[in-house]
């Protein structure tokens, strides 16, 4: 693991004065924060607030209009092979003809050089599938899977290259309570060997499980999860927020889906 060591921990994400504008419209401005390894950060914020943009900046899919981004001690593009990325599964054509194992193996590709999958690629894909509990579905069509299992397939694809950092875009969307608990178990296990940044609409999930909250609304504010209060949420989502779930708040934390 490379990167700057501060207080004995390695910095994996460092943003300094980062701004991004699109067509003259500022999506993000003056973003400054650092995140250390082994962190489990939840990224929350209103739609259009810049969550996906921030994720794409971390992956080098977008270049910032100002400021510098350091991922795992190097530029986002150079760090990409060591980052596992799970996009929202809704953006994928569900009728694409591909078995689960073939999709997971695409995570082993790197660069444009000619090479076919090796037996090692296949083995690693099998390991990643068993890690997310999908071994018996290796030959199933992606399109035949439920939303929850499609997400697991895409998490396996993100894991197959042994990343040091896992970026997950909306892994909690459309999950029932049982699947959400399973997802948390999986992420907690993965968090023992890699940092996780998870974008979620589900403030409840984030406040329950994450160690740190990245609030994104035109800029970025970091909170320890314990500080995530009703006031913070109202400030971010506006007065219209309704707390609709109370199933996890036995220790007094504010939980809930926002409906801003």
């Amino acid at each position: 693991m490379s990167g700057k060591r501060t207080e004995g921990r390695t910095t994996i994400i460092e943003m300094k004065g980062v701004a991004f504008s699109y067509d003259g419209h500022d999506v993000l401005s003056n973003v400054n924060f650092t995140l250390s390894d082994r962190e489990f950060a939840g990224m929350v914020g209103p739609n259009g607030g810049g969550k996906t943009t921030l994720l794409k900046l971390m992956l080098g899919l977008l270049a910032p209009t100002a400021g510098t981004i350091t991922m795992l001690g190097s530029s986002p593009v150079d760090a990409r092979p060591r980052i596992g990325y799970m996009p929202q599964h809704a953006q994928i054509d569900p009728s694409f003809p591909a078995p689960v194992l073939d999709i997971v193996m695409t995570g082993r590709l790197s660069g444009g050089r000619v090479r076919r999958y090796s037996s090692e690629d296949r083995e690693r894909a099998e390991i990643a599938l068993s890690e997310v509990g999908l071994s018996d579905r290796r030959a199933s069509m992606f399109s035949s899977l439920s939303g929850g299992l499609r997400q697991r397939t895409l998490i396996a694809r993100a894991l197959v290259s042994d990343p040091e950092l896992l970026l997950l875009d909306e892994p909690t969307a459309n999950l029932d309570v049982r699947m959400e608990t399973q997802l948390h178990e999986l992420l907690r296990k993965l968090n023992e060997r890699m940092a996780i940044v998870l974008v979620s609409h589900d403030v409840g999930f984030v406040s329950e499980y994450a160690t740190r909250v990245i609030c994104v609304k035109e800029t970025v504010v970091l909170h320890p999860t314990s500080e995530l209060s009703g006031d913070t949420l109202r400030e971010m989502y506006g007065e219209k927020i309704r707390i609709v779930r109370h199933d996890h708040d036995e220790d007094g934390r504010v939980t809930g889906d926002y409906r801003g």
Partner: protein
Amino acid sequence: MGEFMRAVAEHTFMRNALLSGLLASAACGVVGTLVVVRRIAFIAGGIAHCVLGGIGAAIYMQTVHGWKWLDPLYGALLSALLAAVVIGMISVKAKERTDTVIGAVWAIGMATGILFLARTPGYGGDLVGYLFGNILMVRTSDLWLLGILDLVVLVSVLVYYDQLMAVAFDEEYARTRGIPVDLFFIGLLLLTAVTIVLLVTAVGIVMMIALLTIPAAIAGRFATKLSHMMIWGAILTVVFTTTGLALSYSPGLPAGATVIILSGVAYLLVVLATTPGGRLRFLPAQRHDS
């Protein structure tokens, strides 16, 4: 049908027609699959229509400037490749309103061809042949070119299959794995251009988009892997071109149009049969597990 078989046995032009249909089918199933899953049928249509520009220019040069070596097929190939690069660059650079630009390139390509042909003295015209296909006019010398083009397409897809599949499945993710996604996109358009040239003689410029997409779309309704979709797409194209040729022979119908009608009817039947409510038993149902 007996008459058709006798004609195949007796006439070189019938054998050439069958063979060119087979050559076109292989590339058509493979590239058609990629065109269908990447939803670039409109781009393929644009490239196809630009081919008339190259054909017109080649015929003009042959007649007016005496460039006898410039076969219309070469003109078709050059203009298809050029159109692929132009449309590819536009699609990669400008992320919005590319359909407007592609539509314009589409029509400009055709208009160029028509102007060249109008300025070609004494050109009575095989224009209809290029527009709607003239598979019975395939010469033995053409088959060599078609064979080489076919090989280029098949070998390229075989070599880059894993990357092509990854990019087609999830372009953004492929980009995060360092795959040169834009280069692969333009590469796919170049392969589409070559396939289009293979299809010009079989079904012509105007109708080829149906043969490029329908067999692959039918295969996509039951294939469980991209490679299976390609293979079944190719097999179906062989079935459609051969059957269409056979059916059209005795009544003297245009072969290209017969092939297209045949594939269109087959597609319609498959859609009706596999849509919920009217599903046929032998086709696998889409299972939903949780």
